[in-house]
């Protein structure tokens, strides 16, 4: 049987063979060009499955226990599953638009009439691709996440199921956040969701997205993609909180592209999953483009969270600023490999990347590997990484003021995360992260 390991897989995983692919295609109702792209991606998936995964990339990632054949796509959401039970952002606010996917199928898709009247499109990808085929064709999987990137990107490109699309026309500003939930409710189901955000020139929007499992016991797989296309002078705030249960595998390619004077503020919360391996790239394509990347991760038990981030400066006068903060406990592991790339024409670039980790247990481990590849000569690029343990003196000091050891640990963790949470402009997200941190620390369970 095939397995995805560092070695090449002798055959495609069951459920994702060429026969399965043909059956899958027949179940889809979609434009011809979409099917065509799937076929191209499937051929790539076949070819790349026969090749070794990049050993340099995968040597740190404990994916040996991953058995893709244990997961399959399903055309149906779990019956009677109520996403309102999930203790997440959705119950904490009213949104002007929301898209919900369960087990790969859309179960809710709504947008206020006011926003629709302004030309804003917000809905589930499968439906919007049919309704707005011409609008999406130039953007979908052509600019940001390409199927020829690697085996997982190709796998996703062939088999993607649901996903969320946000399109904001030129100059339109959407003030209130929109919301997207991706949930898995059945055991052994794979989610291949695809998020596509297109902001035309001068548009503004905020999209809050989160993932969740229906129960702690179901095994899940996510092979996802996120594409964020930010036009000239457009401003996008995108938040993704990955909050699967600890029996889920999470593989994703996530990429944002920003045109001249556009701005992307991207916040990542890495909380759940057994193993997560995410490529998060930002490309600054036009003069004056900027991106701020904020990452908060909290790993416990035997979780392994891996983030490979890249900030690519393709144009002059561009700025990128990445700050990840990782909290680790038990036997968990966080891997962060960051890269700032500056192309020869991207003079006057200002690039920054930093990863700080706080280890709450002696058996947790963080690998932080910053990197720079600079081909322009007039730039300012800085990087840094720190790893520290909770200081026993801090705990004792706080206890001397009447805080329990647990409370002391909690405030120290919150304090550690403060510099990154200060950068998150949406209070709802800060609150949700705070709650998630409390749960991870075992408070309020």
């Amino acid at each position, binding site marked *: 049987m095939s397995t995805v390991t560092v070695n090449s897989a002798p055959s495609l995983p069951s459920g994702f063979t060429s026969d399965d692919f043909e059956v899958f295609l027949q179940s889809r109702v979609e434009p011809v060009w979409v099917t065509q792209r799937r076929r191209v991606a499937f051929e790539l998936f076949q070819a790349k499955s026969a090749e070794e995964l990049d050993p340099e990339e995968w040597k740190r990632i404990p994916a040996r226990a991953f058995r893709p054949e244990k997961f399959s796509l399903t055309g149906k959401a779990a019956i009677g599953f109520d996403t309102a039970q999930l203790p997440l952002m959705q119950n904490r606010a009213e949104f002007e638009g929301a898209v919900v996917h369960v087990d790969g199928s859309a179960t809710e898709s709504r947008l206020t009439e006011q926003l629709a009247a302004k030309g804003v499109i917000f809905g589930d990808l499968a439906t919007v691709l049919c309704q707005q085929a011409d609008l999406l064709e130039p953007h979908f999987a052509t600019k940001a996440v390409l199927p020829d990137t690697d085996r997982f990107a190709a796998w996703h490109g062939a088999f993607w199921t649901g996903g969320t699309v946000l399109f904001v026309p030129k100059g339109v500003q959407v003030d209130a956040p929109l919301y997207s939930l991706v949930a898995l409710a059945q055991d052994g189901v794979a989610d291949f969701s695809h998020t596509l955000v297109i902001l035309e020139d001068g548009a503004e929007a905020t999209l809050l997205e989160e993932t969740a499992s229906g129960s702690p016991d179901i095994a899940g797989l996510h092979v996802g993609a996120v594409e964020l296309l930010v036009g000239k002078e457009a401003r996008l705030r995108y938040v993704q909180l990955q909050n699967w249960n600890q029996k889920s595998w999470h593989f994703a390619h996530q990429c944002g592209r920003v045109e001249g004077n556009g701005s992307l503020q991207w916040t990542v919360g890495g909380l759940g999953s057994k193993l997560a391996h995410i490529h998060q790239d930002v490309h600054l394509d036009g003069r004056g483009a900027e991106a701020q990347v904020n990452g908060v991760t909290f790993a416990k038990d035997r979780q392994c969270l891996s983030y490979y981030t890249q900030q690519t400066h393709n144009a002059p006068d561009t700025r990128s600023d990445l700050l990840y903060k990782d909290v680790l406990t038990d036997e968990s592991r966080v891997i962060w490999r960051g890269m700032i790339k500056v192309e020869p024409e991207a003079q006057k670039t200002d690039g920054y990347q930093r990863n700080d980790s706080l280890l709450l247990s002696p058996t947790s481990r963080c690998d932080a590997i910053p990197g720079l590849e600079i081909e322009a000569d007039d730039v300012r690029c800085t990087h840094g990484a720190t790893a520290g343990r909770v*200081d026993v*003196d*801090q705990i*004792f*000091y*706080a*206890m*001397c*003021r*009447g*805080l*329990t*050891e*647990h*409370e*002391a640990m*909690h*405030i*120290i963790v*919150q*304090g*550690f*995360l*403060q*510099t990154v949470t200060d950068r998150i402009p949406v209070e709802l997200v800060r609150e949700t992260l705070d709650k998630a941190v*409390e749960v991870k620390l075992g*408070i*309020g369970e």
Partner: protein
Amino acid sequence: MSSILKITDLHIAVDGKPILKGVNLEVKQGEIHALMGPNGSGKSTLAYALAGHPKYEITGGDIEIDGASLNELDANERARLGMFLAFQYPVTIPGVRVADFLRHAVTNRRDPDRKEGENLMPMREFRQELRGRMNELGMDPEFARRYLNDGFSGGEKKRMEILQMAMLKPKFAILDETDSGLDSDAVKVVSEGLSSLAGPETGVLIITHHERLLEFNRPQFTHVMLAGRIVETGDASLAHELHANGYTTVRERHPAEAAEEQAEREETLATV
């Protein structure tokens, strides 16, 4: 009824090494005691042991408040009962605002049975009280928003300790060389703060080398430590004498402890 902190034949070991070898001391609420003694005599050990530092193992004797033993209680439980230690080297906790930290601390002190996650004291009430205390100590209200001791000067850190004491209203406060490392202006500020804030509700144990702190906070009792024991107790004039003449005469009066002190010094030197 005024509370009594009673220390009886207290023995403390650190990493198995005996440091305190039978300390006896009684402090009543409202009293001021000075604790003096040469370096290494065990003053800070007593302070940490009273506060409940896990490294300071009680190998004999008792620490009690009003007859109830603290021996088995951790630092947090002791703090909630009214024990307070002003640190010689206050600890920095980055990212934690002074106000947030103190609101937790004060709530737990006033509601000792509070469990984590239960309500904190009302923000408005807390802020008002904090502002009042800061004002009395001549502190910029901006301090409340700063991260705890992060980037504070030596004087600011010590003032922060006094502020915490004022907010927590402990029954017993131990000040571990709160005046060390401060210039005389800063010592004056801290001394005045202490004297105005430690009222009849607080018994104070001041560990110091300097007289300045005692000028504003005149002790009723002065204790001298040597080689892990309190060897003499007198009044404020003893503190004055020690400050003027050092510990030579004390050592002469207590040759056994002086010899022990000497032996320990030599042992320490030999291991370095």
